[in-house]
């Protein structure tokens, strides 16, 4: 990373989206921060702003965050028009202020999509993703019934590629970046992860049909090959996975018996 060098304490102007609830009208609010340390993470910069807002009795800015090390997927934010900000494969919590220059103006918005309604300010409801997983993003194996772990060898390249897809953190940046607010990269990552492993094979068809069906029901758009999702993904999930999902979907549509919910077992 070629960090521009700074003296301590930058002046930063923030234009932040404020919205008191899902039905309320939102608007940008401007705040000027006088001495932002380049070593701060983006969220720490918001912490500092919130401290000053609390100090003056104003309402602090709500934003989702938790692990602050780039793995939980809680943080979101569209920063200057880019989901998770300007750095490739970097979540907002891992973006640092040394990326910005003295005097910069930064615009901060929530992830915007019909399927992700705003809860408050920069916080959105991403529970649609959980419902897609509940529809079929699993291997149906009950605790206690598994065979010996090394009973079924998995070729290393397949395991590695499954891991590339399993690395998805479910943050929703793919949806926020897509002009159609499509969730296909998210769904494709799970379909690919489980398709590439022999453990996922028995439910290969029912899984992709059920997950795509759930995705459509949640109101996500369709893919028209803009590849913005891949550019925004903080974990580098390959967009080629979408092509795999489409193949899997077509194959399942042609070969499987009429779709049944993957989740209809006992």
């Amino acid at each position, binding site marked *: 990373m070629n960090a521009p060098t700074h003296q301590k304490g930058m002046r930063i102007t923030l234009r932040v989206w404020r919205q008191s609830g899902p039905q309320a009208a939102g608007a940008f609010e401007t705040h000027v921060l006088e001495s932002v340390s380049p070593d701060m993470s983006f969220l720490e910069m918001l912490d500092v702003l919130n401290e000053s807002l609390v100090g003056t009795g104003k309402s602090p800015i709500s934003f989702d965050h938790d692990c*602050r090390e780039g793995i939980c997927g809680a943080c979101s934010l569209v920063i200057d028009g880019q989901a998770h900000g300007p750095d490739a494969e970097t979540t907002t919590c891992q973006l640092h202020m040394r990326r910005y220059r003295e005097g910069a103006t930064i615009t901060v918005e929530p992830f915007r999509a019909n399927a992700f309604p705003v809860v408050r300010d920069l916080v959105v409801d991403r529970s649609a993703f959980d419902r897609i997983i509940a529809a079929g993003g699993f291997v149906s194996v009950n605790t206690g019934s598994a065979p010996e772990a090394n009973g079924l060898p998995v070729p290393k390249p397949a395991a590695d590629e499954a891991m590339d897809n399993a690395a998805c953190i479910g943050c929703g940046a793919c949806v926020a970046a897509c002009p159609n607010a499509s969730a296909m990269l998210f769904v494709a990552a799970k379909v690919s992860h489980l398709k590439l492993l022999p453990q996922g094979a028995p439910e290969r068809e029912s899984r992709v049909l059920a997950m795509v069906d759930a995705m459509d029901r949640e109101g996500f758009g369709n893919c028209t090959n803009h590849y913005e999702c891949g550019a925004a993904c903080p974990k580098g999930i390959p967009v080629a996975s979408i092509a795999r999902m489409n193949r899997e979907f077509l194959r399942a549509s042609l070969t499987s018996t009429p779709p049944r919910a993957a989740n209809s077992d006992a």
Partner: protein
Amino acid sequence: MSRLDSKAPSGPMAERWTRHKFDLKLINPANRRKFHLIVVGTGLAGSSAAASLAEMGYRVTALCIQDSPRRAHSIAAQGGINAAKNYPNDGDSVHRLFYDTVKGGDFRARESNVHRLAEVSTRIIDHCVAQGVPFAREYGGLLANRSFGGAQVSRTFYARGQTGQQLLLGAYSALERQVGAGRVKLLARREMLDLVVVDGVARGIVARNLVTGEYERHAGDAVLLCTGGYGNVFYLSTNAKACNVTASWRAHKRGAFFANPCFTQIHPTCIPVSGEHQSKLTLMSESLRNDGRVWVPLKSGDKRAPGEIPDSERDYYLERKYPSFGNLVPRDVASRSAKEQCDAKKGVGESGMAVYLDFRDAIARDSEDAVRARYGNLFQMYERITGENPYKVPMRIYPAVHYTMGGLWVDYNLESTIPGLFVLGEANFSDHGANRLGASALMQGLADGYFVVPATIAAHLAGRKLGPVTTDHAAFAEAESSAKERITKILGVQGKRSADSIHRELGLVMWNQCGMARDRAGLGQALEKIRALRSEFWENVRVPGDSKDFNQTLEHAGRVADFLEFAELLALDAQQREESCGGHFRTEHQTPDGEAQRDDEKFAHVSAFEYQGQAQAPKLHQEPLTFEIVHPSTRSYK
């Protein structure tokens, strides 16, 4: 009957769990749906328990504080999960994992529990592989293992540097499968604010919907707390921001004993603090110590760049002090040694509160590409946070609070001193003694959730007469109004300070006087400061907004209020435990060469505290620990 009946079985160690399971009552499959279980928290322990119990036929309500169960902090565990598979044929066995864990815990864990953990470890791997967890594999397609955290055998399974993520996503997918099947009701963005006890039995909880601010009552036949550890009492820790002690603490105030709160783990390889804005610390997997060499300049105050300091003027102090384990000594030893070096003014970096972790020799030996293949994601993370390239300049590391071995006291069935209240994962105290070994937290969380509690919960459900209890019961009304009252009181203070600033101050007190090294006088001062901060909070905290809304500042303030009460218990425990063991180092109790000195005669027991009311000192109970198999010896890594 003593209130601390561990219910640990007797007889040959290797047969105890099997025999205990046979002796436990069973509930026939058709009857299971009559029972409603409340699972609080959806990390490894909570998700795995909720999924497994629902698969068996119980009705489950699962609550999590995040917007999705997949975000629980188990997700951040990097290194791996231990299991006694002995695939590498290097001499591992259930007995050896058991032995290493008891010894690594510095002889402060219950042998029966630890043996069970080692026994079920192998089935965890089987189950996770069947779920599709993409563990690392060898070219032949079989599972890969590595040695981790100083273990002399390779028993750690891993998925790149994201093992916790992959195991949690496995448990989460199992949980979501049950949600889809209608057997688990999942409630996200909920915070448990109180435990409801009816006729001495845990029968429900009061929670707050964090989006709407509404209070909710949930009644059931058992409550399972899977709410993680209390590391954030130190403010700066590697825990996620939402990690808190509230659920455990409220249960404690309702009668659950709190065990060994002073057993906290400080992880040696974290990225140092960069300034006052610091909101959390980031851990880097200790697998880095397999190839990185830890050093400081030989001369104190040496401000030269690391590359300009020749080998003859470097002190590779771990290799010097512990020739047989070198850089791979256990976490507590590595952390304390770093502190010693920094206290001796040999620390590096701008703050002087760091030591070097240097990959120069590994890169020269194996090539930069080989190092990248092993640790690429960690190096990238380090560079993102610090702006320095660790392939060229040694990393700077410093210890940080990472895990808490203490927690609510549980018996062999994982049941607390409140019947019907079960505690799983990091939230309980049971398996790691005074120090947890690397890659054992994931093992314990999943052992508790997948394999232990699904068997042991029947002892409660079938063994006690559980009359019907609904949320109309007076105990629910009482719990709800006390939760409401507390929140109203916090909002009513309208002082001048943010809860965050008080939390930071508490963290500094805990870190300086109750952290890596503790002494009687310092702990006494800490107790005074904690009490003063608690008064400060209730007189001067300022929380904007109201409770009928999504209010993150209010959520945090409630958690800080509980940390301010809990911190006192932690310091009291540290004060009364007049010995050094594992993560608890009392400077008065050390050997002439500065190693921890246990006192097995006086302290081979679990300290479990009973709440006596706000103004009273807690009552201390002891559960004696007996060691039938692994005889206490001095841990030596020299």
